[in-house]
């Protein structure tokens, strides 16, 4: 059985396709049609809904997610709200009233998703005025093709000036606190099964290891932001899915003097604050990975284990000389990330094994991290080129350089020739300008829908120069602002 709270009502689901997404459930089973399907790929945000968690001091924390690619089973034990829950009688939620008054909707199809995203912002801010950055960030995963966004942003700026939401709205109440999550599913049987397909929801790593022994070909569902596409774009159906969302031990971030370790199920959103402390450049990258809705679902472990050549975090983890801890019923082992990626979407993970955590050495005082993401669009786009660079120096010379790129090869890959050239060179801009010429010896990238091979090489080379500029002439890279 899957049990969750939907708009204040407890829902129990038993006989259902384990491959069912939340959106399909909402639109064809529970008949909540306010939530729309725009792309079924987690890219447009028309399907945004709210997941509420009890944060500290009985406060609710709301996260907008893409219902289209999220697995219904991953809701087990959770509380969600759709736009239907925001209005009570004639009392519109402040987001809704502001959107009306500021002409924030034209065709209206993206609007429920935008209302959901802004409602999350409204509640998480406790009704306080959001900054421009927070508004942009909240809307980063919501496409609107009609308005050009100006009236939506104006509505977001104004929403806190409206009367508070109705206290009768389930989203305003302590619905999440009242919700009694279901008893743990026993592992003898799947949480749900239908037509020979099964979904398991383990709550301990022991259970997970046993399941992986019994079902070595099972699909591990972390955030599912890539797997979900196989359901909704390729119309694939998985026989056995193991949803990892209840494994609390995989959501921990731990620190020692030397390392910081991220449990595999730490989402991008949850990682951000930790990264901001240790690796500000990495944290800034996180803000450009997909959009808020995806960052609320997607996990660091998933991004690494997926081994995509265009995943954004692996090059940075490579530059940071990270290791991964792999576990199975037979025990645990650590593998340097350098040795983890074996080929296009192939890793060192063996059958029955799962990625437990990513262990990242902290930067020393002599080291700096530089991260650059280049894509057609600033938000919610896949990198044409992504660079992670760690430079170590002794004040006069470069003593170590670790450079990894995404989008340049079949796997995230180190730029060994460029690294070698930098080693021992004077710690000055010209060393980077010279080293940049070696990029062409490190990579022969592809042409694809995002960029040509020539552009990738040119940019990758220039990003080595930019690394030098970031160290020696940071003011030359200050960007944007007002005219």
């Amino acid at each position, binding site marked *: 059985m899957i049990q969750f709270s939907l708009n204040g009502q407890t829902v129990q689901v038993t006989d259902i396709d384990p491959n069912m997404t939340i959106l*399909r459930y909402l*639109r*064809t089973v529970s008949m909540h*049609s306010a*939530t729309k*399907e*725009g*792309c*079924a*790929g987690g*890219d*447009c945000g028309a399907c945004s809904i709210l997941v509420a968690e009890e944060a500290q001091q009985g406060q609710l924390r709301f996260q907008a997610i893409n219902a289209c690619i999220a697995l219904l089973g991953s809701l087990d034990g959770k509380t969600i709200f759709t736009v239907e829950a925001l*209005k009570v009688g*004639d009392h*519109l939620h402040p*987001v*809704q*009233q502001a*959107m*009306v008054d500021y*002409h924030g*909707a*034209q*065709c*209206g*199809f*993206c*609007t*429920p998703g935008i209302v959901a995203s802004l409602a999350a912002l409204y509640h998480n801010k406790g009704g306080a005025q959001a900054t421009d950055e927070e508004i*942009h960030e909240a*809307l*980063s995963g919501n*496409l*609107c*093709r*009609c*308005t*050009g*966004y*100006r*009236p939506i*942003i104006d509505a977001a700026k104004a929403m806190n000036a409206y009367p508070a939401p109705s206290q009768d709205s389930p989203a305003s109440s302590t619905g999440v606190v009242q919700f009694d999550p279901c008893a743990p599913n026993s592992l003898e049987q799947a949480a749900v099964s239908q037509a020979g397909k099964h979904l398991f929801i383990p709550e301990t790593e022991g259970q997970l290891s046993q399941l992986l022994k019994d079902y070595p070909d099972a699909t591990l569902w972390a955030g599912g932001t890539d797997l979900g596409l196989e359901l909704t774009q390729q119309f694939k*159906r998985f026989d056995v899915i193991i949803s990892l969302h209840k494994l609390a031990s995989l959501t921990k971030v731990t620190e020692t003097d030397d390392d910081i370790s991220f449990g595999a199920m730490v989402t991008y959103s949850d990682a951000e604050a930790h990264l901001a402390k240790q690796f500000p450049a990495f944290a800034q990258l996180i803000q450009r990975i997909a959009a808020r809705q995806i960052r609320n679902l997607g996990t660091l472990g998933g991004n690494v284990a997926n081994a995509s050549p265009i995943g954004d975090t692996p090059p940075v983890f490579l530059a940071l000389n990270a290791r991964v801890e792999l576990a199975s019923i037979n025990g645990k082992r650590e593998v340097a990330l350098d040795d983890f990626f074996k080929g296009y979407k192939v890793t060192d993970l063996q059958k029955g094994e799962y990625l437990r955590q990513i262990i990242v050495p902290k930067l020393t005082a002599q080291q700096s991290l530089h991260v650059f993401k*280049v894509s*057609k669009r*600033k*938000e919610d786009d896949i990198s*044409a080129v992504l660079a992670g660079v760690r430079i170590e120096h002794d004040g006069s010379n470069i003593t170590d350089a670790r450079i990894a790129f995404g989008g340049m090869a079949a796997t995230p890959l180190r730029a060994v020739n460029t690294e070698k050239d930098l080693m021992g060179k004077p710690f000055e801009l010209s060393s980077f300008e010279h080293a940049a010429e070696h990029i062409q010896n490190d990579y022969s990238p592809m042409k*694809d829908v995002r*960029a*040509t091979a020539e*552009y990738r090489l*040119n*940019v990758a080379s220039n990003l080595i120069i*930019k690394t030098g500029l970031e160290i020696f002439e940071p003011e*030359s890279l200050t*960007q*944007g602002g*007002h*005219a």
Partner: protein
Amino acid sequence: MSTYMSSKMDAYDVRRKRPVKGKSGKSATHDSALQHVTGEAIYIDDMPVLPGTLHLAMGLSEKAHAKIKSMDLSAVKSAPGVRSVVTVDDVPGQVDIGPVFPGDVLFADDLVQYVGQPLFAVGADTFEQAKMAAKLAKVEYEELPAVLTIQEALKQAHFVRPTHEQNKGDYKAALENAPNTLSGDLYVKGQEHFYLEGQVSYVWPQEDGGMQVYTSSQHPTEVQKLIAEVLDLPINHVQVQVRRMGGGFGGKETQAAPFACMASLMAHMTGRPVKARIARQDDMVTTGKRHDFYNEFTVGYDDQGKLLGADIMVAGMAGYSPDLTDAIVDRAMFHSDNAYNFPAARVVGHRAKTHTVSNTAFRGFGGPQGVAISEYILDNVARAVGRDPLDVRLENLYKDGDVTHYGQTIEDYHMHELITQLADDCEYRKRREAITAFNTANKYKKRGMALTPVKFGNSFTVSHLNQAGALVNIYTDGSIHLNYGGTEMGQGLFTKVAQVVANEFQVDLDMVKVSATNTEKVPNTSPTAASSGTDLNGKAAQNACIKLKERLDDFGKRHYGATEVRFENNHVVLVGATQNHDGMEGDELWIGFGPYVEQAYMGRTSLSATGYYATPKIYYDRAKASGRPFFYYATGAACTEVEIDTLTGEYDMLRADILHDAGHSLNPAIDIGQIEGAYVQGMGWMTTEELNWDDKGRVISNGPATYKIPTAADMPNVFNTKLFNRKNAEETIYNSKAVGEPPLMHGISAWLALRDAAASVSDYKVNPPMNTPATPERVLDAVNYCKANS
């Protein structure tokens, strides 16, 4: 809901004294605003599904140009949940569903002409079952040579329609005598509509063999006619209804019909309701887009940059069939002068046939591609003579009395004043100096700015479409029902036309309700396209109102002995009424609109009227390539400032200022919404939105993961939009101007600002080639070109 009827709650004596609410010229909110924000607005996929409904998915061609040797659908038919498979062999009537000219087929017969062309449709109990079943077809192809580019089509003279040519004066002599000439080419890529609601139709078969059709279409009449033709039915057996679309942008003008026809065919075969909701990727592969254009030009100019003559060739990528390409290439030709007077010119327009999806209408309809070539030319000339592009633009503007290269005389042209006002408002000159200072001080970051105008011709270039009908019913409580052929796709048409009706009767806006566009209420309508929605339907609705007012006037004179009847503040005012009544004020009798209407009904007055409108003055003689194709021009200008990173080509939109002429705006909030939305859509077309095809003719930008429309962060950091409030000299509805398409071309200023920033690397000595869209890659190419050539 009480919110809707609040003004009816006011007593008439209150309404007597206050001005009417939401009248024309006021920023009334969108008529569906409440339903939009609550998610209560019903789109077709939200309608309750009838029992037995089949969900339709298509099998698509995998080859660009091939003969179908065999098609084995047995696995499709036996897949779980499948109830029906239809192919071209099942069509009882016409297979060709070309909207204007033949060439578009509902399903491929033995020949496929693009990757993604529908081969068959499968109907299953669920959407997912249909999608999974469609993948099981086994199709054998015999590949044929495919033409995949405009340049190749030009080489082979492979066209869907004949080439057209317009001439003004002796362009050859003008170019020969010009002290300077320059030549070049420009490739302008197309654009995916990316309406948030994909194509969708839901069809219910009727007892008489007819079909009731709910579709997301800008052209219900065409859907109705094509279904009738496919099913071999009289048109009156098919009823098509459109309440709203989740975005259209031209992509649902002709492209909604195939899916409605497929669903109707399956409904005809099975007797079941059929829903065709097209998955996003199928939508992006199977439906047409904005045309790519390949353009070439030679212009002559003097040392000050004054244009002397031009020879312009535009070639649109039609795809495999004509669809609307003829009119689209015509419109590109009509707009290749944009705002400027070419004293002599030749404009040639080709309609290239390629083995790709048939391209279609998209906001601007070829106009933007024409304007782009003109603005690119002006930029090139300005840099060639070493002047600020704004000065060269100002110097070459049309003046009243000038004649275009297609014979239309320029009238009521305020462009110089409009541009000057915008340049002053946005401090163009001061900021130009600041940009120069910034670029001198910064080695890697460069800024650029461009101010570009748009002059856009309003009217369908297919002249018979310039007509509209409306239906206005008044009920005995005074509430008014309005219907017309125009469709609502978010642009606020329903609101603006309701404001016209409210204004005619001087009643509160919420007394007027617009219902779904329906072919049984107003027949034989034109598509909601060419920015014509308000111009045509507003006038038709006004015409119906005038008829009703005449009847109400007659009744007042007949029944009350009034000498004059007028409408004011939710009342009917009878001047000189012969008898004393309650409500007399001096010699005026004031009766609430509702009670008066009820009296008129009791007095046997017809309270329902149709209205009609046909645009006056327009004609185009194709043989002479001359005429007045446009009733009037809408104008505007935009100034965009950008900053680029010369190491990666990435950029930021720092500021945009727009001044746009919507005539006497019927609804400033809605008009500004159209202008801002069009700017951002145009900016996306010119910057990050890149259609890509592989060498087999497959669209590889086939979803939002690979095709990037602007997000909120792409909006300019400073974004100012103002209306140039000027009465339209032509007698349009309340002297307003159409506003749907013209402002899309403001996005061109973003592209040319990027080019300006790149050119700064050469101190503006070089004109870097910059095809569109100006992705970071193309910006970096332009920077590198400037470095290499200066």
